[in-house]
C-alpha cells in the first residue's frame, strides 16, 4: 500500500497539532503542515491524500471548502467547524438541536444605549467569528460599550461554568472560572447525568461526523438549567484529566473516519 500523505491545516505546528503529527508519522504516514505562512489555496494543495482541519480561522476554513469542492476528504468537516466558529450559526444550531443557549443581541453601541434595559446587565461581548475566550468581555454598563460597528452581546448567565470535552464516547467534565480559556487550571468532576444527556444529544445531531470537541456550559444558579455558551470543534484538550489518552484516540478516530469516508467515496 502506498504511503499516505496527510496535510494538517493549523495555525501552529506545536501543541496538539505537533503531537498529532508525531502520532500519524509513527503510524507510517507522511504529514505536512499548512500554516498561515505557507498555505496557498489553489490546486497545489491537491497533492495530499486527505486533510485535518485543526484551526478554524477563516483561511483554514476556506482551504477546507476548497478541498471538499475538489473531492478531498477533510476531517473535521469544514461546515461543521464553521457553524461552531460563527456565533450566529452556532446560536441557531443550538436551538435546532434543542439545547438552551443565552439570548443574543446585535446592534451598535448607540442602539444599545437607547434600547437596552439597565436591569438586563451584565452582558458578554463576543466576536461573531470566534470561539473560546478571545475577544470576550463582560459588559457591566453602557460605559463598557465603546467599540464601533455592529456588536454581538449575549446575556450573562450567572452560575457554575463547565468545560466539557468529549472524544468519541468519553466525556470529561471540568469546572472552570467564568470566561477563562481552555488552558487555565480546572477541577475535574464526575459528569452529571444531565450533562451526559446534553453531550450525547449534541453528538448524535451530527450523525457520526462529530468525533470529538468541547462545549462550554453554564448551569444557571437560579434555575439549575444548562446553557451552552460556546461550542468548539477542535480544542487542545490541555485539561483532559480522564481515562483515555487523547492524542492517540483522536489520531485513531481520524484515520478510521478517513477510511470510512474513502470507502463511501469509492462506492460512487
Amino acid at each position, binding site marked *: 500500500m502506498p504511503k499516505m500523505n496527510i496535510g494538517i491545516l493549523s495555525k501552529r505546528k506545536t501543541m496538539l497539532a505537533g503531537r498529532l503529527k508525531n502520532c500519524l508519522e509513527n503510524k507510517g504516514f507522511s504529514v505536512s503542515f499548512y500554516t*498561515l*505562512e*505557507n*498555505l*496557498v*489555496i*489553489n490546486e497545489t494543495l491537491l497533492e495530499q491524500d486527505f486533510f485535518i482541519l485543526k484551526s478554524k480561522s*477563516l*483561511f483554514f476554513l*476556506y482551504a477546507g*471548502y*476548497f478541498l471538499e*469542492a475538489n473531492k478531498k476528504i477533510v476531517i473535521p468537516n469544514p461546515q461543521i467547524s464553521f457553524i461552531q466558529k460563527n456565533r*450566529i*450559526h452556532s*446560536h*441557531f444550531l443550538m*436551538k*435546532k438541536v434543542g439545547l438552551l443557549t443565552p*439570548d*443574543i*443581541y*446585535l*446592534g*451598535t453601541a*448607540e*442602539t*444599545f444605549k437607547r*434600547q*437596552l434595559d439597565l436591569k438586563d446587565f451584565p452582558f458578554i461581548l463576543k466576536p*461573531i467569528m470566534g470561539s473560546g475566550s478571545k475577544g470576550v468581555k463582560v459588559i457591566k454598563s453602557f460605559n463598557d460599550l465603546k467599540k464601533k*460597528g*455592529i456588536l*454581538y452581546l449575549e446575556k450573562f448567565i450567572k452560575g457554575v461554568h463547565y468545560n466539557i470535552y468529549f472524544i468519541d464516547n468519553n466525556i470529561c467534565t471540568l469546572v472552570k472560572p467564568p470566561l477563562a480559556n481552555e488552558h487555565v487550571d480546572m477541577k475535574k468532576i464526575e459528569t452529571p447525568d444531565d450533562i451526559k444527556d446534553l453531550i450525547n444529544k449534541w453528538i448524535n445531531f451530527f450523525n457520526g461526523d462529530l468525533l470529538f470537541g468541547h462545549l462550554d456550559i453554564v448551569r444557571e444558579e437560579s434555575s439549575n438549567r444548562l446553557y451552552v455558551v460556546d461550542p468548539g470543534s477542535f480544542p487542545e484538550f490541555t485539561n483532559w484529566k480522564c481515562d483515555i489518552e487523547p492524542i492517540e484516540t483522536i489520531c485513531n478516530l481520524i484515520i478510521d473516519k478517513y477510511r470510512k469516508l474513502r470507502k463511501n467515496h469509492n462506492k460512487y
Partner: protein
Amino acid sequence: MKKIGIIIDKYHLKYKVSDFLKYLRSKAEIVLYVEESFLLNPSKLNFDEDIFFAKAKGDLVLTFIKLVEEETSIPIINSYKGTWLAINRFLNSLYLKKAGIPIPDYTLNPKGIIPQFRDYIIKNIIDQKNYKFKPIVHKENGQLKVADERALNEVDKTDPRYNYLYYQKFIKSKWEYKIYGIGEDVYFYKQLPILINPNKIESRKKIDVIPELEEYCYKAMEVMDLKLTSLDFLKSKEQFFLTDINCTPNFNYIKNGPQIVANYLLEQAKK
C-alpha cells in the same frame, strides 16, 4: 395590503432606494429595519410581514436574514446562503466554478507569495462594506498588476485585518457586461471597463439578450440561491468570464428598475 419589511443600512437608505420606496409605498405597507438603529434580539421579535427584502449585507443584516429563515416561514430576498456567498469572494468563486460557470483563474495567497499567473487583479476577500472599487494600477515589464485599494487596506490597515490576498487572473476585455437577474427576468447592459473609463454610467448601454450569459445568470442564481443579483462579465478571445457577483445590486440603473424590483417582491409576498 401587503406588508413588506425592508432590512437596510443608512447608506443604502440615503442613496439607493428613494424611487423604490416611493413606488412601493403606493402599493404596500413598509416597515424599515435600519442596521445602525435597530436592536436585534431574536427572542423578543414577532414578525407579521408578508415578505422581507434585504438591501444591505452587514453583520446585523445577515443575522436578521438568518433569524427570518430559521424561525419564520416568511420569504426573504435574498437568502442567507446567497448573501453570505456573495460577500465571500473566495467561496463564491468556488461555487461558481464547480457549477461550470467560467470564472478567471484565482488563488488565495499569504501576502508575499505571488500568484502563478502573469497579469492579475487583487480583490477584496470579504465584500461587505459600502465603498467603491478604487483601482491601483502598476505596469512593469509588460506585466499588469491591478489592486483594489480596499483589498490592500484589509491586509495592512483597517479591519478585517489578515494576511491574505485574493488574486484573480486579469482578463483584458473591450467591454464589461453587466447582467441583472430579477426573479425569472434577465436584463443586459454593457459598459467600458472601469479601468478605461471610471465613470461607468457614461458608456453604459442596453444590449440584446446574449443567450450564453442568460444561461450563466440562471445557473449562478440557482447555485447561490439568489433571486436578485447583478453579474459582471468580461470577454476575452470569445470566452466570457464571470468576474463579480452582487447580492444587493443597484437596480436604479435598469430602466424602471425600482418598479420592476418592487413588483417582483409583491409577487413573491406570502399569499
